[in-house]
């Protein structure tokens, strides 16, 4: 093992001490607000949609309006006001506890930062289809891709973007297919492969592509990386969580699924005395 006994180098930290360096933008009173090289009030406000600016801040790319509209439509699909969904339930609990709408909604967004559902799963969905396309271009067949992926989970069709919890089939895919067509987008190579994978999963496991798989493939065709997609969809579940919050806020406190003591199935130790310290 070679040894390095130089004095600690703090030059990097000294360079940043007392100074903010931004690759994003900033507000300079009297000069303007700047956002990724654009003058916000002159170049962006009134000329671009909120989703275009949101994607700009998430990725550094000012995308065309129709792509921002597509993302907006996808976000509508991915958040709805049913408090049985885990993140929405947190919003409802916030309402019944009289949390602020912001606290409850942010808590719901944080809950959806999950490896089982929500925005983080898009990262894996995009990573899968981009890896699958790379394999496909290297001569690996869709059948091999599906078999390999399923083998990782004991033969089950546990591929991010295909199948879904609670239900079979996904009505949101068809809705987004209509949006894609209406906005004039063609199916790209990721989406084409995604459909091939879906056909295999349908025939072998009776499972179809879900909205994650469709969005992951479509956004991959638009040139986004997994991390960029994750960032674009940061507040994915916002509207549904807020809706569930409002519903319980407008009812008496603690009326959202109130629990009697015997509604809890206690399975721990029976009553016992506190022992002497050891």
């Amino acid at each position: 093992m070679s040894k390095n006994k130089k004095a600690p180098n703090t030059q990097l930290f000294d360079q940043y001490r007392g100074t903010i360096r931004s690759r994003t933008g900033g507000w300079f009173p009297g000069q303007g607000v700047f956002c990724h090289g654009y003058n916000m009030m002159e170049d962006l406000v009134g000329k671009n949609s909120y989703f275009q600016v949101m994607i700009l801040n998430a990725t550094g790319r000012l995308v065309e309006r129709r792509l921002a509209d597509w993302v907006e439509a996808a976000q509508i699909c991915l958040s709805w006001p049913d408090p049985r969904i885990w993140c929405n339930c947190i919003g409802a609990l916030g309402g019944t506890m009289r949390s602020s709408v912001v606290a409850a909604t942010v808590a719901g967004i944080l809950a959806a930062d999950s490896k089982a559902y929500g925005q983080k799963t898009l990262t894996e969905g995009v990573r899968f289809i981009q890896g699958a396309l790379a394999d496909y271009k290297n001569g690996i067949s869709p059948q091999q891709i599906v078999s390999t992926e399923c083998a990782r989970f004991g033969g089950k069709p546990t591929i991010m973007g295909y199948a879904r919890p609670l239900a079979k089939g996904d009505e949101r895919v068809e809705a987004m297919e209509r949006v894609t067509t209406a906005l004039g987008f063609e199916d790209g190579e990721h989406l084409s492969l995604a459909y091939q994978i879906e056909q295999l999963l349908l025939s072998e496991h009776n499972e179809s592509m879900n909205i994650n798989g469709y969005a992951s493939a479509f956004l991959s065709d638009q040139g986004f990386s997994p991390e960029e997609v994750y960032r674009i969809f940061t507040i994915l579940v916002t509207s549904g969580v807020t809706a569930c919050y409002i519903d319980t806020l407008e009812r008496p406190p603690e009326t959202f699924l109130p629990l009697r003591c015997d509604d809890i199935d206690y399975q721990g130790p029976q009553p016992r005395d506190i022992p002497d310290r050891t």
Partner: protein
Amino acid sequence: MSDKTQKHRVVHRRSDTFVKKQLTKIWQEQPSTSNPYIAESARCYGYDLLELMQHRSYVEVLYLLFQGDLPSVDQTKLLEELLIAFINPGPRHPATRAAMNAGIGKTDPAHILPISLSILGGSHLGAGEIEGAMRFLRKSSKKSADQVATELINKSIKPKEGDWHIAPGFGNRFGGRDEVSQKIASQLLTSPGSGPILAWGSAFADAIKDFDMGWLTTGVVAAALADLRFQPRAGGGFFQLISAPGLLAHGLELANKPFTAMPFPTDEDYIIE
């Protein structure tokens, strides 16, 4: 899209079987005879709450809550020392600064902790590093610390910029060894409840000393929690719990002060690259 695919856009609920009641082994509430929604008593893992208040310390009940059994005297001592050691990340820590920003910004005081704990959840010196550190310590402690250090030094690639965490919980901070963490670890080692993981971690910290690396806060917490038999998955959240008092205190300290009580970089010190 084929007809077959079209057919599967039709949604059917799966036949999942959910439990009828929420299960827990932690807490039991006895219903009042007059109102089933009101509890007349509560027990934690079988111990009556009021009796715990009389006969046990907060630290002992904290351990009980997470482990299911009361700790030994030695375990209590180690846990109490750990809770004190990391009660406050300090005013320079990004999570504390988030708390201070909330305070000075007149944010609802009830939001100070969720805000700062979210930042403390990060994977750099935060809760997000604890689970990995616990897994690293539990796995690597089966080999000699010198051997693991040599392997990691030889195979790891030092980042071009910034600090180098050669393993979760170990590395350098601001280019050097985190001296307070070394001292805390040394003191915890003298606690009768310390075990093989803290000892192995200290040997590992010594083995990487010549590279200006050693214990990080996250490594010390991870090692102590591992010796206290906490599961890795519990480590991150427990680290947040340990640090919460300091975060809240710093946020509240600024809650009644004007915006000018916190530095605000000038335009000259704000550079758009």
